[in-house]
C-alpha cells in the first residue's frame, strides 16, 4: 500500500509540470497585453514600455516561464499584476468561500442524487425511474446562469424566502476566523449569522449541485442495478430480509465504490471555482477571481490560480484513488 501511495504522489510531479507549461503558454497565447488593458485609451508608447518592464513582461517568454517555475518551486506564486497583492493571499482570502459553496453543493448533490439513483434502480422502468432520469438529463444540460436567474426570481424576488446573492447580509455582524462563514458562526455561537450564512448558501449551492447531482444519480442507478443482479442479493432476499435492508445494507454498500469516485471527482471539479455560479450569485470565490484575472490579462493571477486549482484537483483525485485501492485490493496490482 505504501509503495502504491508513494508511486501516486511521485506521478503528480510530471503532471503538475505539464499543467504549468500548458497554463503558462495558454494564457500568454490569448491576444492582449495587461499593460494595454490597464492603461486603456491613455496608453502611450513610453507608459506601456515602462509598465511592461515593471511587470516583467518585457522578457522573452521562456525567461518568464523559467521565473514562474523557479518561484513556484519556492512556493511563491508571485503578485497579481492588477492588484499588486500576493497571489497566495488573494487565494487564501477566496478559497474558503469556494470550499464552503462546493461542500454544500456536493452535499445536496450526493443526498438527492443517491436517493434518486437508488429509487430508480430498485424501481427500474417505473414512472419515477423515467422521470428522474429525464430530470437528470435536464440537470446536466441546463445552462447554469439561466437556472440561477430563474431560481432567484422565484425564491427571492417573488416569494421572498431566500436572499438573492452574496455570502452574508450586510446587517449581520460576524467575527471572521476561518473565513468559512457557517463554521465561524458556530464557533462564535452567532446563530443569527449561522442562519443567514446558511440561507445565502442554499440557492447558489443548489444551482451548482445540478450537474453533479445528475451524474451521481445516473452512476448510482447503474451501479445499483449491477449489484442487484448478483446472486447474494437474491440469497438475501430469499432469507426473508426486508427490501429496505437488502437495498441499503447489502446492495448499496457494494455499489458504493464507483459512486464515491464520482463524488470525489465532481467535488474536485467544483473546487476549481464555479465561474458562472459565483458570478451570478456574487459569490466572492476563486472562480470569479480567475475570471476577472482573464479579463484583465492578469497573467500571474491566472497562472497561480490555475496551478493551485489543478493541484487541488490532482490531490483529490489521488485521495480517491488511494481510497479506491484500499477498498478494492485488485487495483494495487497495476
Amino acid at each position, binding site marked *: 500500500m505504501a509503495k502504491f501511495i508513494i508511486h501516486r504522489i511521485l506521478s503528480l510531479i510530471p503532471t503538475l509540470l505539464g499543467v504549468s507549461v500548458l497554463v503558462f503558454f495558454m494564457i500568454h497565447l*490569448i*491576444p*492582449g*497585453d*495587461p499593460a*494595454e*488593458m*490597464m*492603461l*486603456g*485609451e*491613455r*496608453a*502611450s*508608447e*513610453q*507608459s*506601456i514600455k*515602462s*509598465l511592461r518592464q*515593471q511587470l516583467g513582461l518585457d522578457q522573452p517568454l521562456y525567461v518568464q516561464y523559467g521565473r514562474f517555475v523557479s518561484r513556484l518551486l519556492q512556493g511563491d506564486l508571485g503578485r497579481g499584476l*492588477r*492588484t*499588486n*497583492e500576493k497571489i497566495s493571499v*488573494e487565494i487564501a*482570502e*477566496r478559497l474558503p468561500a469556494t470550499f464552503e459553496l462546493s461542500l454544500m453543493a456536493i452535499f445536496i448533490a450526493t443526498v438527492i442524487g443517491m436517493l434518486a439513483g437508488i429509487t430508480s434502480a430498485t424501481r427500474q422502468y417505473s414512472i419515477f425511474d423515467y422521470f428522474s432520469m429525464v430530470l437528470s438529463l435536464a440537470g446536466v444540460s441546463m445552462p447554469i*446562469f439561466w437556472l440561477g*436567474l430563474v431560481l*432567484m*426570481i422565484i425564491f*427571492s*424576488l417573488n416569494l*421572498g424566502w431566500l*436572499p*438573492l*446573492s*452574496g*455570502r452574508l447580509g*450586510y*446587517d449581520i455582524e460576524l467575527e471572521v476566523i476561518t473565513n468559512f462563514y457557517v463554521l465561524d458562526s458556530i464557533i462564535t455561537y452567532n446563530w443569527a449569522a449561522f442562519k443567514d450564512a446558511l440561507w445565502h448558501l442554499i440557492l447558489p449551492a443548489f444551482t451548482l449541485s445540478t450537474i453533479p447531482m445528475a451524474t451521481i444519480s445516473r452512476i448510482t442507478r447503474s451501479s445499483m442495478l449491477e449489484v442487484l443482479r448478483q446472486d447474494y442479493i437474491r440469497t438475501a432476499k430469499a432469507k426473508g430480509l426486508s427490501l429496505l435492508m437488502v437495498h441499503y445494507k447489502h446492495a448499496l454498500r457494494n455499489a458504493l465504490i464507483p459512486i464515491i469516485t464520482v463524488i470525489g471527482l465532481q467535488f474536485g471539479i467544483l473546487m476549481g471555482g464555479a465561474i458562472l455560479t459565483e*458570478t*451570478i*450569485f*456574487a459569490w*466572492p*470565490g476563486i472562480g*470569479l*477571481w480567475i475570471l*476577472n484575472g482573464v479579463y484583465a*490579462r492578469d497573467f500571474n493571477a491566472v497562472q497561480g490560480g490555475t496551478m493551485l486549482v489543478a493541484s487541488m484537483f490532482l490531490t483529490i483525485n489521488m485521495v480517491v484513488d488511494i481510497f479506491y485501492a484500499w477498498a478494492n485490493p485488485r487495483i494495487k496490482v497495476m
Partner: protein
Amino acid sequence: MKKVIPLLTVFVFLFTGSVLAESPKTGGTLVFGRGGDSAGLDPAFETDGNSFMICDNIYDQLVLYADESTDIVPGLATSWDIAPDGLTYTFHLRKGVKFHDGTEMNADAVVFSIGRMMEEKKVKFFKDNWEFPKDQPPPEYWLSMEMEDTVDSIEAKDNHTVIFRLKRIEAPFIANMGMDFAAIVSPTAVIKHGADFRSHPVGTGPYKFVKWVKDDMIVLKGSPDYWGGRPYLDKVIFRCIPDNSVRFLELKTENIDICQFPNPEDIDLAKKDSKLKLVSQPGMNIGYLSFNHTKALWQDKNIRKAFAYAINKKAIVDNIYYGLGQVAKNTIPPNLWGYNDDIEDYPYNPEKAKKLLKEAKFFEKLKKAGQDKITLWSMPVARPYNPNGMKVGEAMQADLKKLGINVELVTFEWGTYLKKQRTHPADMDLFQLGWTGDNGDPDNFLLILLDGMADPNVRTQWKNQEYHDTILKAKTTIDMKARVRLYRKAQELIHEEVPMLNIAHSLVVWPMKKRVMDFKLHPTASIRLHKVWVK
C-alpha cells in the same frame, strides 16, 4: 409695480420651495451596488473607476471639484497663490485637520503624499523627514497627466504652507491637483503598512475605512469630525455584484440602494417601479470616428466634411445608445467650461455628402491609392463612451454604402486594437475610439485627442499648425477668460477642418431607491457621498 410682482413671485417660490425641500436626516446605511471590486485603495497607484470611487470618500485633495461641475474649489488648501510667472503655486492648508488615524494633516504630509510619486524627489520637509517607501509600482496617473514633466520641486515652507515649483507653465496643473491621484494620504499609515497600504487606506475624507472583503464588499463609516461637516450617513457599503441583471434584481428586492451600470432594458423597468427613481448625468466623454491622418487619402478636408454629412449620428444615438447619450457637435462635452455652443453641427445630408465627394474626386483618389474599399476599425468591447463599437460601425457602414463607398469593418481583441491603432497602419482608413475626461480641463480633451504636433502618442495624429499654436497658448495661459476664448477658437477649427467626427457623449443613468436623497452623479464620474442622506 411691474417689477415688484415678479420679484414677489420669486420670493413666494423661494419660501415655499425651502419649506417643501426636506431637511437632511442624519444616520442610516447606504448600500451601493457595483459591478466589480476595487483593485486597491492607494490613490497614487490605482487606474480604475472601482478603486477611485472608494478613494473619493476616504481622501481629500488640496483642491476639490465643485459639487456638480469641474470648477475648482478649496479642499485641504483653503487658498492658493500663483506667482506672476505662473511657475510657483503656494498652497495655504486648512488648520486642525486630522487623518483618520489621528495624526495631523500638515505641509509635510502633503510633501510626502505627492513627493512619493516623483521620480527625482526634489522635496523639502518642514519638520518630519519622512522616508519614502521603496519598490513602488509606477504612479500611472502622475505620469499620464504629465506631472513628472511639470512639477520641479515641492517644499513645506511652514507647518501649513506648501510651495510647488513647476518646470513649465501648465494651466491644467491646478485641475490635476483635484484628481484622485493627488489625494493626501497619512504618511504614518503608508510607512506602517508599506505595500499593504492599498488595503489599509487612511485619509482625511468624510468616510473612514472599516473593512474590505475581497470581491464582496467594502465598508466605510462616517467620520464625525470631518472638516467639511459630519456626513449624514453612518455607514456606506459598496457591494460587488458582477452580473448586471442580478444587481438590478437586488435593487428591486430593496437589498441595495443604488444600482450602478444597469442593463439599458432595465431602465424602463425602473421608470415604471414606484419605489425607484433615476438619476442621470451627461458623461464627461466623447465617442468619435477619426480618419487616418497619416494617409494621403484623408488630407482633403472636403472629403472629411462629406463624411460628416454622411453619418446619421442621431440614428446611432437613438438605436445603439438606447437614447442614453446625446449627439456630439464638439469634441468636449457640454458640461465642461469652454464648451462652444455657438457651433452648428453638420446635419445628416447624404445628397450634400455625395456632391462634396464628387467635387473632391474622392473615388478617383481612392482608385489611385489602389483601394476599392475603405476599412473602418471598431472597438470589440463596450466603453463608457460607446456601448457597442461594432454596432456603431455597422450603422456607419450602411450610411456610407448609400454614397457608394464600400466599407470593411475591422476589429481586434481590445488590447491589440489599442496597440495596433497607435501605429496607424496603412490598412486603417477610419477608426472609432473615444475618451473619458480626467480633470475637467478642456486641454485634457483637445490636446490629448487632436494635437498631433504636441505628442506622437495623440491617437488621431492630426497635425495642424494653427490648432497646435492655439492649444499650446491655452495650456500656458493662466487667465481663465483668455483660456476660454482660445478653447472656443480651437473648437471652431475642429468644426471647420473636421479632423474627426464627434459622434456622441454618453449619458449615465442609474436607478436608485426613492429614499436616497441628494445623490449626484459627478461629471468626473467620481462618487461622492458626503452630502447624501437616506429617508
